[in-house]
């Protein structure tokens, strides 16, 4: 299926919108979850700090998705960041569970 230039443009926009809204939220959620366990402060404080910061992380992710060169790059970047955060989070949770 070959798309016209206009069609490709619209698909690119739609793709970025999904990446920004959905992918951005996932990224912010992972970062919040990670910071809440990893920050060197009492747990309640860490949760508070992480959650307070979450919206700025989400907003930055959205801005980045629309600033970056192409929709593909946006998705790749989000996927890589999510994978990295997810791995560290899994490791941190495992460490907490085995340590606690």
């Amino acid at each position, binding site marked *: 299926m070959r798309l016209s230039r206009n069609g490709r443009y619209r698909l690119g926009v739609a793709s970025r919108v999904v990446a920004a809204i959905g992918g951005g939220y996932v990224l912010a959620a992972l970062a919040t979850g990670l910071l809440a366990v990893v920050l060197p402060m009492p747990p309640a404080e860490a949760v508070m700090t992480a959650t307070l910061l979450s919206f700025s992380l989400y907003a930055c992710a959205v801005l980045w998705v629309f*600033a970056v060169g192409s929709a593909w790059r946006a998705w790749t970047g989000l996927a890589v960041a999510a994978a990295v955060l997810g791995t560290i989070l899994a490791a941190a949770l495992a460490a907490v569970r085995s340590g606690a």
Partner: protein
Amino acid sequence: MRAGLRQSMAWLHGWSGLLVCWVLLLVFCGGTASYFKDEITLWMKPELHRAAAAPVPPAEAATLAVAFLQRNAPRSPRWFISLPDERSPVTQVLWIRAPGEPGSGIGGSRGRFESRTLDPATGAFLGTVRDTRGGEFLYRLHFDLYYMQPLWARWIIGACAMCMLVAILSGVITHRRIFQDIFTFRPRKGQRSWLDAHNATAVLALPFHLMITYTGLVTLMFMYMPWGVQTAYRGDLQAFNNEAFGRAPLGLPSGQAAPLVPVAPLVAQAMRHWNGAGPSRVAITLAGDANATVTISRGSAGALSVDEPSMRFDGATGKLVATSGDAPAPASQTRGVMVGLHEAHFAGPLLRALFFVSGLSGCVMVATGALLWGVKTRQRQAKALAAGARPSFGLRLVDALNIGAIAGLPIAFAAYFWANRLLPVAMAHRPDAEIRAFFAAWAVAAVLAQLHPARAMWRAQLWTGALMLAGIPVLNALTTDTHLGATLLRGQGPAAVAGFDLTVLALGIALGAAAWVLGRRTAARKAVPAARQPHGARDAKGAT
């Protein structure tokens, strides 16, 4: 997307702003009004104006309230008295019906309570104060919306707030000459004037807009981002609340009876601990049981943070169990201050007025942004329009939504206040009727706007809004005796009522001025021969 950071941010700013601007306008209008919600409620209850005009010392109000309760609820096991303060000038008493009394109240657990509003100066029941949600409706409207579950509304508003945050940040990035243009306003230059107005209201109150958007998200942050609690507390919200806010879960009754200790020494101990600061609330659980607790909270009135320090005592022995909030941890305090800044609970009248002005500039920012989009799009379609084509679907829709929201919302607000004065006082379901008036007026304005999104509709709705708002003080004079003549000129009435009358009058005049200017522009355009207008650059509002 176009190449370059500024262009991509400009694109993002335009779309993230436009898609949610009409909801945001509602949120800003409701939120700005909420800064004075207690004053609005007072204006909407004229029966209380006399009480509000002459403040009564709390000790006297308390004595009279106790006398009332002794006469009317002598066998009730628990009395609550809310004393009058600056923003709510009446005494509220609440009591639990004594066991054995017929409970014909509202049903369920609420049927056990009875409440009355008393005149603080005489201790007498204030009789039929007209039932109204008052300013609370406008406050709730801006995050719970209406006609839907609060949970849905809060998710919708949260999404719109994120769009607004993105719009603010992308707007700042894309505004290349933000410091050079900061005072620029070039009137009568069509699209450029709208851009200047949008920039001025946005940049001059930028700290407020950024603050109000972010802190708005923070007020519901555990709903939008529960993931920290999920990972750090394995989803145990109660444990988190206990550690973070000092909220103990409700205990279970032990079954052993133990008389409640006298509360006065506990209050005195709390006041000593807080260096004389007065308690605002006393909450008692399981009174008469061995597991009773007495929690005394200090008001947050003087501080930026909303979090109230509190002290929890064992209800049977009077021993201090826990104190919280005296030295809040940094992140907790940050959250408390952020929510406090959003609500501005600490603000005295002048500071509150500053918040109000900033909120109004937010309304103008959103409105001018939406109008600017319409003007720009109309200019892009100018050639086709001049050749006789009809406006595109998007342009027509945006024009219609603009009229319905920007001109329609003032009409809705005014209708709410008109309904308050005109509906019969002893009517059933009165608050719902007033709220229906709000939405009915808005619906009529919005539907008419969709049918005919033209300049004439702009002028008609702006004039309607102007006359309705400016007419409120007149209506007030015709229906009560705490009108501007008494409250302002003779200086006797509650200041809040005078302030309300003056504010709606000023808003009405402003809308009237806008309608008048629009009328002159229309006349001037009609005077220019049609052949001389190929660019349509001066066409500021709506289609013809």
